[in-house]
């Protein structure tokens, strides 16, 4: 199983020299294995480049099928979809999976490309697009891959996915806040609660259950890709934004005994040098701990096999 990062950034794409090494495109990860259709997670601006590469294969002649798992529909996770070249070739098939909402999924996605926002409406794109609505905790298969999801702690709610093929497995958990002081349902949270205010017992229990489900989803995975947008200080200021820190990710990874953790969904303001420093700091803290650690960067491909996750492309 191969995992390749096409966009690693959160919130908004950030072009410029200070993001050249990790990349400025928003969230998109590709999962590939011999003999299966590509599985893509999230459709931030990074999916544009994946689409160009796929256009060089069966997708270029309208014979491709891809599966797109959407964590949630915030802009940075869907804004690249209208620029995904395979959608414009008749015969291609795209299966889109996302959490069920009050509104039909097709309608949510169609409104992204309707007038006056985008010139080509979804219904005029030539590929055959099928939407699959998921519950908060569901199992399904994509060819030989078994997929499971569980909900995360994020405004409007996001899903984490585990993709299992035989012995190999990867979990994608973005976007999520840690599970200690705010529970996101559907409501808007403009300001964080006062520091130290106790959480209602029912909410505390729901958060604990959500965290347990996530740890179980991650249990023994070869690779865990986790939202680590914030530093500890940034989290203190914005606990209601729905993002975690590297320490939160490491705690989940260790508890679930995953093989390798990939820091992911980097803050738009994070320069390459700052991201290097975060990685160095985390590696030092993990000295002697049996957990591999990488920071996701555009172009990086990790191959998962019995010996773990090793970079096979773009480790530069």
């Amino acid at each position: 199983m191969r995992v390749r990062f096409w966009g690693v950034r959160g919130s908004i794409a950030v072009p410029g020299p200070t993001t050249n090494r990790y990349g400025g495109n928003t969230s998109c990860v590709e999962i590939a294995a011999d003999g299966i259709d590509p599985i893509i997670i999230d459709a931030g601006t990074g999916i544009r480049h994946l689409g160009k590469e796929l256009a060089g294969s069966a997708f270029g002649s309208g014979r491709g099928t891809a599966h797109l798992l959407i964590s949630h529909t915030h802009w940075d996770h869907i804004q690249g979809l209208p620029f995904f070249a395979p959608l414009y070739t008749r015969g291609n098939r795209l299966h889109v999976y996302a959490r069920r909402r009050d509104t039909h999924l097709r309608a949510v996605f169609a409104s992204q490309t309707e007038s006056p926002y985008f010139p080509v409406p979804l219904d005029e794109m030539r590929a055959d697009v099928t939407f699959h609505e998921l519950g908060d905790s569901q199992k399904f298969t994509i060819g030989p891959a078994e997929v499971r999801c569980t909900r995360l702690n994020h405004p409007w709610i996001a899903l984490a996915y585990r993709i299992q093929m035989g012995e190999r497995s990867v979990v994608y958990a973005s976007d999520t806040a840690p599970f200690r002081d705010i529970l996101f349902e559907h409501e808007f949270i403009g300001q964080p609660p006062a520091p130290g205010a106790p959480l209602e017992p029912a909410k505390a229990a729901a958060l604990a259950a959500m965290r347990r489900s996530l740890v179980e989803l991650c249990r023994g995975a070869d690779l865990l890709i986790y939202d680590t947008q914030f530093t500890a200080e940034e989290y203190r200021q914005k606990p209601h934004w729905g993002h975690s820190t590297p320490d939160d990710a490491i705690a989940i990874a260790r508890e679930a005994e995953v093989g390798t953790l990939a820091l992911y969904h980097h803050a738009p303001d994070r320069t390459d040098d700052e991201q290097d420093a975060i990685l160095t700091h985390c590696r030092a803290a993990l000295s002697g701990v049996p957990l591999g650690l990488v920071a996701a960067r555009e172009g990086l491909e990790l191959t998962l096999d019995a010996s773990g996750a090793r970079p096979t492309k773009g480790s530069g």
Partner: protein
Amino acid sequence: MKVRFWGVRGAIPAPGPETNRYGGNTSCVSVTGARGQLIILDMGTGVVGLGKQLMAGAMGRGQGRAAVLLSHAHWDHIQGFPFFPPVFVPGNQLEIYGHAHSTDMLEGILEGQMNPHFSPIYTLRNLGAAISFTAVAPGEVHDVDGIRVSAHPNPHGHTSALAFRLEEGGASLVYASDAGYPLDGPSRETLDLYAGADLLIHDATYTPADRATRLERGNSSHADASAAALAAGARHLVLFHYDQDYADDTVDDMTRACRADLDRAGGRDIALTAAAEGLEIEV
């Protein structure tokens, strides 16, 4: 008027080393008038950088004020709005002028961008700044903080995009992004809007060869831009809104070709600049 470019790209932001020199952010230009009045032309991702700079001044204290002129509402012209820091500071005032049949429709377009499916902001009402909306009709003239603003729609694929002319103290600049003229060129009314502009910021999304295969997209090539500048008697042409797949070297080539076109066609006196993030021009 002082002009500064914050985003010069079309369609979608294009990060990567191949766009470092001209920049990969989508469309945003700021114009500062003689008294420091601020007009923002479009709010692509470039507006985030502008917003960060503004936060060091009155906007950071909730005492800032700016007008925003939106050419149209395709994503690359509004996608920076929810990430424009001054919009979260109570006390700031933002006057948004745009291309819609009514003020309610214009507000509805930006409200749709904040919809909870897509944005954690949920609704415009959660933004701290006071935001007002004005729908701009062709031919109307607005006095925006002492800057005279007029507009005319250009065809843009299945829709249209407003070109704006800004005038102050005898100086004039035109912002004409996303212009997909018919093959016989811009309309009389469009050329009237551009006439004699000291600075013409013009859509130059494509090379002429690429435009020929993408006519339905409704964007200009650099040849369309130079022809418009010549026909309107503009003094300085700025190429703008490059295709997301064009590396810096391609923009260099386009600029050289455009210079040669201008020289051949009797436009030696027309200055030519390729817009780049951070570029400032005094008009």
